[in-house]
């Protein structure tokens, strides 16, 4: 089917077409710009959509309408928010550290955007096909914590600092399981390059795709990855740092105006990036779910899966209560970490065992039993501990 192929590669072809007009000297720079620009455009738009989607979704979950005043069914709400944030006065606390205060949101957004360089949106539609793509993703991902800390500390207020410290602690704790969960896929696929991983999953047996999610370690890996991802992006059950009921707005409390908007942009972009990675690792990236659906262009599949995950996030946000800080930490270090290690172990076992039902049985049991044990361990300590906060003294 030629038509789907050209449609599939429409963006790639158009880029090459456009490059033809560019003098050779500037060739590399222009090609870079051309490939980066669409990403910079598409994902903020997605951000706008998700804000509306989230507010309407939460409303629906909470049995109320979301924003419906602005534009049809409130879908132009983001435009209104955007205008609001642009027009709001940018108040900077006097004692704040001006430079760091300004840099924090920029760094956050930049880190988020950098993450997309590696995600294969469509077939042959990856900004840079790095050999150590996943590693790049996590390297860039780690900058986010620094940005959060800068924001929290530079605004010189107790609440922002406390929120920042909590956010950083949380993000660091969940980065470990995040990485370990992804390692399972890397181990299985044998390569760090996201493109290779997707290509590996692009094949089909009969109509079933070879996605990793359809393997016991793949599925647990996906679940753990998603839990860690939500924690990474400070959303839903893990949004303790900026929980309104806790410490108002957490580390971006002193921000207002456009910088406030940037923080939100950064946060959502971070969420899209981690879910994008989840898609590439576990859900086959731009691969169609079924062999007969491959005619639909690859990027469509990527964004469809992305929207699905966003809905899941919104769904989780609406339903799960907020975790307490020590429960959050305990979950990370006492449940997630062992499970991911175990998952890596089962992936190893899976790899060496001959395929077949026994392999399924063994692996699933290997995963289910410890999961139950570990989770019971968490439930035992029911009584509330007196939370003691103290500095290093």
């Amino acid at each position, binding site marked *: 089917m030629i038509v789907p192929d050209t449609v599939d590669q429409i963006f790639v072809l158009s880029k090459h077409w456009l490059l033809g007009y560019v003098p050779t000297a500037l060739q590399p720079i222009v090609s870079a710009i051309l490939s980066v620009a669409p990403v910079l455009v598409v994902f903020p738009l997605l951000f706008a959509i998700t804000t509306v989607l989230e507010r309407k979704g939460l409303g629906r979950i909470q049995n109320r309408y979301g924003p419906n005043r602005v534009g049809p069914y409130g879908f132009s709400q983001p435009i209104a928010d955007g205008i609001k944030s642009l027009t709001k006065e940018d108040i900077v606390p006097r004692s704040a*550290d001006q*430079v*760091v205060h300004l*840099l924090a949101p920029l760094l956050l957004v930049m880190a988020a955007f950098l993450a997309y360089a590696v995600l294969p949106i469509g077939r042959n539609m990856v900004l840079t096909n*790095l*050999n*150590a793509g996943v*590693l*790049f993703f*996590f*390297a*860039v*991902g*780690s*900058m986010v*914590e*620094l940005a959060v*800390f*800068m924001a929290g*500390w530079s605004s010189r207020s107790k609440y922002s600092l406390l929120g920042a*410290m909590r956010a*950083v602690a949380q993000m*660091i704790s969940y*980065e470990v399981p995040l990485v370990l969960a992804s390692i399972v896929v890397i181990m299985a696929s*044998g*390569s*760090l*390059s996201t493109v290779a991983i997707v290509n590996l999953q692009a094949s089909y047996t009969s109509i079933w795709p070879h996605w990793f999610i359809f393997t016991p370690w793949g599925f647990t890996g996906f679940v753990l990855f998603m839990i860690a991802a939500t924690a990474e992006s400070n959303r839903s059950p893990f949004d303790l740092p900026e929980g309104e009921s806790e410490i108002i707005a957490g580390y971006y409390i002193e921000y207002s105006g456009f910088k406030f908007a940037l923080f939100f942009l950064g946060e959502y972009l971070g969420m899209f990036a981690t879910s994008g990675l989840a898609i590439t690792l576990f859900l086959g990236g731009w691969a169609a779910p079924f062999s007969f659906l491959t005619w639909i262009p690859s990027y469509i599949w990527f964004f469809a899966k992305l929207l699905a995950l966003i809905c899941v996030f919104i769904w989780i946000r609406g339903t799960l209560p907020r975790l307490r800080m020590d429960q959050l930490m305990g979950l990370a270090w006492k449940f997630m970490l062992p499970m991911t290690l175990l998952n890596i172990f089962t992936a190893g076992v899976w790899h060496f065992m001959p395929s077949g039902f026994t392999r399924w049985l063994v692996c699933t049991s290997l995963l289910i039993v410890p999961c139950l044990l570990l989770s019971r361990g968490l439930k035992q300590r029911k009584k509330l501990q007196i939370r003691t906060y103290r*500095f*290093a*003294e």
Partner: protein
Amino acid sequence: MTLFFLIAAALTIAGTAAAMSLRNPIHCILSLTLGLVGLAVLYLQLGAQFVGFTQVLVYVGAVAILAVFAIMMTRSAGSPQQPAFSRSWLSGSAVAVVVFAVLAWAISSALPSTKIVPPQPAVSVNQIGDALMHKFALPLEIIGLLLTAALIGAVIVAMPERRETP
């Protein structure tokens, strides 16, 4: 001596110099991260992607945050009262300068300035993985052991004594 190299070098030097000279520790650490990112870029330019990304991951992600945490916990976050530099800063910097001079002299005089530039060695993560697993298996194990030991050690050292007398 491509322009890209110069930019990266300038970035690194600026970041590190600032890291060592700023008064506020937090600023130092942030500038340090900048410097280290510059260094990672240099690694990428040299073709060692894996090392560059690990560098960023380890230093920017972990060490910087750790340093910040340390600063936060030792209450030296605020603008420090005493002067930032130790009393005998002059002699220290003098020693550093002399060291640099000697190393520079050594470098410039020792190596033959071969103009030919060997081709960019293509290194893939697979090759690194293989090397790690085969030729450098033992060091890997040792590093693993060392990291766990360090982990436990750091925790024990930093942990407040259980029987803290009031």
